[in-house]
């Protein structure tokens, strides 16, 4: 006689809803904590009597390390599962923030705030979360899940800045950093449900490639569509980083009050949540390359309108709301395209390389913005570079072939 045992229901912490909430919380904390560092520039520089350059260099190193570490973090996530990588990242992130709070030596500060925090952000980033979600949720819900995770990251940016400011005011900068370090450790807790997606020692699943990781990377870069996608994402980084860093001084030059500029930057965060979420929905309903192309085109149009019209509080708010709506809306579509072309097995790794291009763009957007301003005394040339690059990105997305790459088809 044989007895059939009914499959045990999954525990509550592995249910889809729990996993989604957990993934979103990771994205909120990861993006949120990172977005607060600018608030510490003045208190830390004044406390140690450092020139602003010390703090700025730490953040510059952080961004560079974040970009370089993202493909490596992706490789680890694809090999060992997202949860383990997120937990490791959370610990490194927290240690880095604590080092920022305790070091009085610039070199140690650069190590903590630059290298450790950069690695921590990469390992606990929402791209690692999205890789897990991409494997967990069914294909028809994948783009929505990417949009949800991206919107969560945006929400994190929006809510953590006032939170950190209040912490600074109530408890001082050192204690505020300790609280933020403890917050990043919260990622460990929220990563636990993602253990349901464990790629450790896994073999290729049905419909996925059985290429090795090295082969996958090499063959992906041999795909024209992947190279086009990567080059387009460079533009995203360039535009966003330039606006983040250089829009406030640009507004000040045009007589917009500091308060209005702060409000305008806040609008970016708010509209970013809606834009990212909507982009995930759109990506799930059809082609991804066309919406991506339109996003870049719309960004260029918004910039042209903004710089051609008189700069007033109204045009500023309309511009930042529009840019906010288009801000991270590229992410769910870009991640979605990576998944369509290459499947989910190496998605964290392959998205990591696309993101590295984004970070190179970010670096150039910030650096060229300052450099060309110093040379010409205004931001005009960089605004127009952003417009031209936006048109370039809109064009390069059009020939992308939105289907599984031949070399990644299941064998």
């Amino acid at each position, binding site marked *: 006689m044989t007895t059939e045992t009914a499959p045990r229901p999954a525990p509550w912490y592995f249910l889809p809803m729990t996993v989604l909430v957990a993934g979103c919380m990771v994205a909120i904390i990861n993006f949120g904590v990172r977005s607060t560092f600018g608030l510490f520039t003045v208190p830390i520089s004044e406390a140690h009597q450092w020139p602003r350059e010390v703090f700025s260099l730490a953040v510059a190193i952080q961004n560079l390390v974040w970009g370089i570490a993202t493909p490596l973090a992706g490789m680890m996530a694809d090999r060992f599962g997202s949860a383990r990588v997120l937990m490791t990242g959370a610990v490194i992130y927290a240690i880095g923030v604590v080092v920022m709070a305790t070091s009085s030596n610039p070199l140690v500060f650069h190590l903590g705030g630059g290298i450790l925090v950069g690695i921590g952000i990469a390992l606990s980033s929402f791209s690692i979360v999205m890789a897990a979600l991409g494997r967990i949720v069914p294909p028809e819900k994948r783009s929505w899940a990417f949009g949800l995770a991206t919107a969560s990251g945006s929400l994190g940016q929006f809510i953590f800045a006032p939170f950190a400011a209040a912490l600074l005011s109530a408890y001082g900068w050192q204690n505020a950093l300790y609280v933020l370090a403890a917050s990043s450790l919260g990622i460990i807790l929220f990563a636990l449900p993602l253990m349901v997606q464990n790629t450790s020692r896994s073999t290729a699943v049905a419909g996925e490639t059985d290429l090795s990781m090295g082969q996958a990377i090499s063959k992906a870069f041999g795909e024209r569509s992947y190279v086009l996608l990567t080059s387009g994402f460079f533009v995203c980084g360039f535009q966003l980083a330039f606006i983040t860093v250089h829009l406030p001084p640009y507004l000040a030059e045009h007589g917009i009050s500091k*308060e209005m500029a702060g*409000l305008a930057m806040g609008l970016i965060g708010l509209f970013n949540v809606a834009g990212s979420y909507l982009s995930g929905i759109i990506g799930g309903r059809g082609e991804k390359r066309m919406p991506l192309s339109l996003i870049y085109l719309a960004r260029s149009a918004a910039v042209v309108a903004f710089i051609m019209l008189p700069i007033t509080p109204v045009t500023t708010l309309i511009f930042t709301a529009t840019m906010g709506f288009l801000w991270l809306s590229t992410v769910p579509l870009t991640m979605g395209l990576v998944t369509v072309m290459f499947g989910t097995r190496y998605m964290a790794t392959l998205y990591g390389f696309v993101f590295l291009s984004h970070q190179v763009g970010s670096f150039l957007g910030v650096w060229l913005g300052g450099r060309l301003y110093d040379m010409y005394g205004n931001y005009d040339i960089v605004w127009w570079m952003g417009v031209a690059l936006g048109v370039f990105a809109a064009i390069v997305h059009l020939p992308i072939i939105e289907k599984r790459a031949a070399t990644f088809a299941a064998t």
Partner: protein
Amino acid sequence: MGYPGHRFALGLFAGVIFVWLAVMMVVMRHSVLPPEATGTMMVVFEPGTAPDAAFAAITRAGAKPIRDTSFGFIWVVDGEAGKLVKEGALGAYRDLPISPIVSGCVAVVDAKAADAFGL
């Protein structure tokens, strides 16, 4: 179990905002200045207070306005917390390094909650 949708997303974000507001309340409570505190501070009046009325109260308290906001009931001033409260301010808070509109709105909610719950 099926996969959730837009209501789930809305609920999640609303829940996060709710928790955030609660945490912000706690932190803002610790930013309240004692009556004897002096220097640069953010002062909030009853929402709807006209900018002229708030300005008058600030000057009656012997404080120096540093900057106002689009909301006329939130000001950054140099003065003494106790005197400002006596002149009708809901509360005086340490100046926060973010837009006073955002911090002022949270401060108003904090002051109302403190009043309601006797904190």
